[in-house]
């Protein structure tokens, strides 16, 4: 039933888009899909509709569904006036892939069955590989190939993990999460541990955790801006979700410490790799991609610490998605205005197009966790989590890595925003409005947190 809701529009619209040959109609179809998606997300959130209960969707899934709904709506709006040199046929393929990509992402984030989650994650790989290779440069084809191949290996390993999870259940095995959790007492801990490692590596590849992150900077930097925004803001969360579910299973089977340790290791590795590369490279879209790796690391650390920090992980997921997608969309503006991807060659964005320049700077301030960004709260709560757990050296490393990343990103952001400008350019409103809305929503999230903190 649930899958019917998610898939009905893409399946009906795909043939229509294939037949129609006008590019604005394709963009409009994607926009309508995104609008419906957003409405569904809101309907799931409102308790009065009772939809979430009847479809057995828990709070985590609902939140991630709503985030991807908001992002998809912003991207749909941004794409309305997108100027591309695609032929009508290519444009229709783009629209179809976009809808299938989002629909399979939703399937993965709403499903309670690990087998189905796995199938949907596999489908997202195919659809998004098409989207990444769309510009048909040598680079974008290379990026898509790496993405497809590395993620396929990851997906295959995750499948091994799922098979081992079945072995771990001696009586009436099931992949349905509720069943696994209710049978958690009888799980064989040896196989559960091995299965967890495989699933962590498998879905971790898709979530872009270091050391399995090699595809991510290529894919996110070569894809068109709207696709990068969705990949970074929505797909990474979807891939992270099965890991959080498995952590829940591990916690119930009294293996939570092992899960936390592995999460901490991968989280710090991701932050470290991101910090090193952010200091070194000059391509600003790649910088943003590395920043996504960093944030995925922070989220894993948050869930490893659990308790209050675990709630901070959820805040971080929301904040990162909203801000990073706004950042990627603005990077699309920058690329359109300046035409270069190396930040040393860019400059004067504030003079060239003030709105984009300010969006760029604000997104930068928010992503490094300056208040009123929600990331400020989540990073602070994670620091409290470290103190509470007594990991003081880890806390120091955490702050050093955060500062290094802030410095590296700041160099790029300020370099692009300031400097002498040559003339002034005009961009359509739909290229600025979505980012504004996303950043405003991020601020709203942090005020919501603040009001919850008041005694």
């Amino acid at each position, binding site marked *: 039933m649930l899958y019917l809701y998610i898939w009905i529009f893409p399946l009906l619209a795909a043939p229509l888009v294939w037949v129609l040959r006008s590019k604005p109609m394709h963009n409009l179809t994607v926009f309508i899909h995104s609008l419906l998606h957003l409405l569904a997300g809101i309907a799931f959130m409102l308790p009065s509709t009772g939809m979430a209960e009847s479809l057995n969707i828990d709070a985590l899934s609902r939140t991630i569904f709503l985030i991807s709904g908001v992002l998809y709506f912003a991207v749909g709006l941004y794409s309305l006036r997108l100027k591309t040199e695609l032929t009508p046929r290519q444009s229709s393929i783009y629209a179809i892939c976009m809808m299938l990509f989002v629909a399979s992402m939703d399937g993965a984030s709403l499903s309670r069955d690990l087998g189905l989650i796995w199938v949907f994650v596999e489908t997202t790989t195919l659809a998004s590989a098409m989207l990444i290779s769309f510009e048909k440069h*040598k680079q974008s084809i290379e990026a898509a190939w790496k993405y497809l191949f590395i993620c396929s*290996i990851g997906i295959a390993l995750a499948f091994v993990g799922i098979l081992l999870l079945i072995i771990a259940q*001696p009586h009436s095995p099931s992949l349905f999460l509720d069943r696994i959790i209710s049978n958690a007492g009888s799980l064989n801990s040896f196989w559960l541990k091995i299965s967890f490692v495989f699933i962590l590596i498998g879905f971790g590849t898709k979530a872009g955790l270091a050391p399995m992150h090699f595809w991510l*900077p290529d894919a996110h930097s070569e894809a068109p801006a709207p696709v990068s925004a969705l990949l970074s803001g929505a797909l990474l969360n979807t891939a992270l979700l099965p890991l959080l579910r498995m952590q829940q299973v591990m916690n119930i089977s009294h293996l939570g410490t092992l899960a936390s340790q592995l999460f901490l290791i991968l989280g710090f590795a991701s932050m470290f790799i991101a910090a090193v590369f952010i200091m070194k*490279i000059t391509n600003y879209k*790649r910088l943003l991609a590395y920043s996504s790796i960093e944030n995925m690391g922070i989220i894993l650390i948050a869930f490893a610490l659990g308790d209050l920090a675990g709630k901070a992980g959820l805040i971080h997921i929301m904040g990162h998605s909203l801000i990073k997608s706004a950042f990627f969309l603005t990077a699309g503006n920058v690329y359109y205005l300046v035409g270069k991807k190396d930040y040393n060659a860019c400059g004067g964005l504030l003079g060239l197009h003030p709105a984009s320049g300010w969006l760029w700077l604000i997104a930068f301030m928010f992503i490094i966790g300056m208040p009123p960004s929600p990331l400020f709260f989540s990073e602070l709560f994670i620091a409290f989590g470290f103190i509470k757990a007594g990991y003081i050296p880890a806390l120091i490393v955490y702050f050093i890595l955060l500062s290094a990343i802030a410095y590296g990103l700041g160099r790029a952001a300020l370099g692009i925003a300031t400097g002498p400008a040559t003339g002034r350019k005009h961009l359509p409103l739909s290229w600025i409005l979505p980012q504004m809305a996303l950043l405003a929503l991020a601020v709203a999230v942090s005020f919501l947190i603040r009001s919850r903190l008041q005694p």
Partner: protein
Amino acid sequence: MADILLVIFGVSLLAASITNMLSSIARILILQGLILFALTILKTNELNTLEFIFVALETIVFKAVLIPWFITDTIRKNGITREVEPSVSNFFSLGSMTAIFAFGFFIALWSGKSSPNIYPLHFGIAFSAILKGLFIIIANKKLITHLMGYLIMENGIFLLSLAIGSEMPYIVSLGVSLDILLSILIAVLFINKIRNSFEDVDSDELSTLKD
């Protein structure tokens, strides 16, 4: 009967580590596909008829015919008559395969005591095939060899899912969808495009994007 087939499957993994010719790896893949087809018929009496026909057909069509044929075709068209070009020697590769086997059987036997539903021979060979596939991917440079490594890994996964299929039949058809992913991956999308954009299908060529 099933045991003999499993042993032949294991021997084919050893053969894959000593050969240098791409075409002989393609032949090994055909052999593995046929073995998997036979095992599907022997082992999956729990599937209902429709599922059984789907899985059996998929194994014979994709694993034994379509994908190996496609790979042989690509080798011929590209004129890649050269060898596999591994970064490690045959001797080391054979030695590591032996170590992988030892590890696979060790895990299977050691943990098999606690779980009655694990048949060590089956599990050990499946696990070794998965690791062997990963090893081939890591140790070689050519994209086409990477694909072959992925295929061997996937054969191992299919073997593993057959071992579990008696308890959860639908997992076998799920494993099959991995094959379909792979076929789309290689056949339609990429090799052709990469061949047009890059002079040779070598992973060293794929280095315009780096930090």
